[in-house]
């Protein structure tokens, strides 16, 4: 057993019965390893199995098949109160009949820590989450952000090996959420505890995590760092869920080690891209092109080379444009009823309206082959 692994999922399946007498597979053969000190996120839409995965680590649910291993110990049916993990709940789950200090002290009392040490550690924990002096209040007298911090202090005061966080910032407003994201990240680096974080907010996951597991329909589709998941998604769902992208459908015409040529069926045009994983000749695929990776050039301008060797060229007409400050978002008609989105960074400051695209402009789109990702169609 590798000793720098904090939590391991070994081929986990979780099946719930439904009230109608059927079953639903919440987690479907998920295997993963989370390292000590890592900030690991489960990211996916609601119902994708991310919260169920977290709850199986906490011990609130037991896997139908497979094994949860924490610190090298198989958890089996170990109840939550005997696991070396603590949870920050989505709704905070603070004990309303206790003061803030009593809430934070609760976990230490369960460990039978001596009173003087409890008082000291509770004070430190509240200080750490910037709630010093709030100890005698009741949770109801605190704001949402402060309650969030109490929940955090209550879990961290136990000095767990692993801290589980179930959409802890979901109930906060946007500004506070961004602040707390940075604070959480700083806190995690400070205490060095493994954080396992569940969220449906991709920006939150990308900002904070060392690694992210993108989940859909119970499956962990891709596990990797923020850059990897954004720049090299391994399937249509991941490309679609993280950030924005354009999809063009086609079939594979030629396939080499590092390149693939796809025939875009409706445009009757070829496009060259990169690929990974399992693809074969004549397979139906989608081509994913991020809008910010498209370079637009006025069609009437003469380019030095007609088609650079490392770029694809598509032609189209501007349908609409939206100036949003940092960039201009252009929607293009590329024929056969297909639309593409392209984001042009406003790198040069000018008031000249001719410097910006307007509807009706005929343009050429240059897309680097490196940024043209060929992905298998999702089996569904």
């Amino acid at each position: 057993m590798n000793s720098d692994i904090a939590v391991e999922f070994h081929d986990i399946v979780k099946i719930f019965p439904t009230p109608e007498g059927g079953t639903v597979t919440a987690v479907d053969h998920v295997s993963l390893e989370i390292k000590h000190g890592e900030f690991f996120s489960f990211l996916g839409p609601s119902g994708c199995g991310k919260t169920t995965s977290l709850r199986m680590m906490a011990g609130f649910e037991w896997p139908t098949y497979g094994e949860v291993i924490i610190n090298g110990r198989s958890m089996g049916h170990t109840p939550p109160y005997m696991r070396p993990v603590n949870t920050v709940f989505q709704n905070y789950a603070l004990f309303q009949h206790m003061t803030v200090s009593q809430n934070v002290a609760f976990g230490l009392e369960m460990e039978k820590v001596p009173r003087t040490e409890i008082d000291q550690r509770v004070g430190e924990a509240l200080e750490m989450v910037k709630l010093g002096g709030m100890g005698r209040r009741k949770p109801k007298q605190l704001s949402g952000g402060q309650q969030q911090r109490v929940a955090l202090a209550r879990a961290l005061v136990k000095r767990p090996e692993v801290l589980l966080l179930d959409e802890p910032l979901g109930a906060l407003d946007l500004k506070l959420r961004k602040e707390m994201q940075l604070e959480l990240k700083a806190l995690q680096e400070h205490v060095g505890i493994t954080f396992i974080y569940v969220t449906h907010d991709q920006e939150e996951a990308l900002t904070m995590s060392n690694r992210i597991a993108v989940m859909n329909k119970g499956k962990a589709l891709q596990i990797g760092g923020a850059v990897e998941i954004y720049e090299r998604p391994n399937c249509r769902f991941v490309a679609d869920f993280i950030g924005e992208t354009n999809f063009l459908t086609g079939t594979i015409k030629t396939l080499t080690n590092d390149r693939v040529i796809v025939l875009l069926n409706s445009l009757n045009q070829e496009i060259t891209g990169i690929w990974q994983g399992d693809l074969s000749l004549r397979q139906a695929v989608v081509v994913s092109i991020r809008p910010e990776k498209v370079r637009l050039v006025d069609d009437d301008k003469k380019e030095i080379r007609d088609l650079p060797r490392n770029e694809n060229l598509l032609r189209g007409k501007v349908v609409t444009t939206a100036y949003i400050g940092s960039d201009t978002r252009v929607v293009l008609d590329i024929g056969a009823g297909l639309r593409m989105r392209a984001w042009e960074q406003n790198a040069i400051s000018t008031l000249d309206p001719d410097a910006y695209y307007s509807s009706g402009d005929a343009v050429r789109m240059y897309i680097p082959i490196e940024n043209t990702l060929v992905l298998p169609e999702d089996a569904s």
Partner: protein
Amino acid sequence: MTNAPAHTSKGKKFSLVRALRENRVAQGLFLIFPANFYLFLLIVLPLLLVTGLSFLSRGEYGQILFKFNLANYARLFNALYGKIMLFSLAVGIGTTVLCLLIGYPMAYYLAHASERTRSLLLFLILLPFWTNFIIRIYAWMMILRSGGFLDSILLWAHLTKASLNLLYSSTAVMIGMVYEFLPFTVLPLYTSLEKIDNSLLEAAADLGAPPWKAFLRITLPLSFPGMIAGTILTFIPAMGMFVVSDLLGGAKTILIGNVIRNQFLTARDWPFGAAASMILMLLTMIFTLYYTRKAGFGEELLV
């Protein structure tokens, strides 16, 4: 709301309609009038009548004489009534405690049962209210009397050798009282137990509390409001109960409720009955206030 032009508010004759349109105090009084009217009619007025009555005297033929008199209260301060008072208090407290002990597990089970079981059980708890209370107590007489249903079963199962002779004893009264008031304890308890978010118990477990500790530290304190509501709903009416003791207790078990009933209906000494009622009310109030304050939830319940 727009301000009315100045000239209209300076009308010479009082007009209710105009007052309601312009005067916020009048609007307020108008809106609270119906509720307060009924409160006055159904609570304040009868209370005043009974209070007044308790200071009057009884005529020779049971009529009321409008002559101020403290003798009614003086009569209550003797050993006999003191004993009845204490016994009633014991029965009231006993009923309340037994209802809590039996009702808590019921309410707990109810709160944690599946949707279908829960509605079935709630239905069963409320089912007795479809039958008249007196009839149900008569049914208990059939069950408890010597040679009755209970005796037959116990004898048949060889659990007892002779009749238990339960009817017309304080045990029978306690059984009847607990039977009658159990739903009034279970329902508020259920309401407060059902409100406890399961994630709180998960949080307790997560922080290292085994189930029994989580119960003592989280579930129990959070169900205090339900316990207090249930206690009040049981204790206050139990203190004034006379039907159960009449039918199941026979002549041996007399509660203060029976005394009051007898004074009004049999002895036709209304002033004395009123005085006894006042003492009962006072006693109940003192105990209830003491209890709610002691439990530390006074302000939440007295809203």
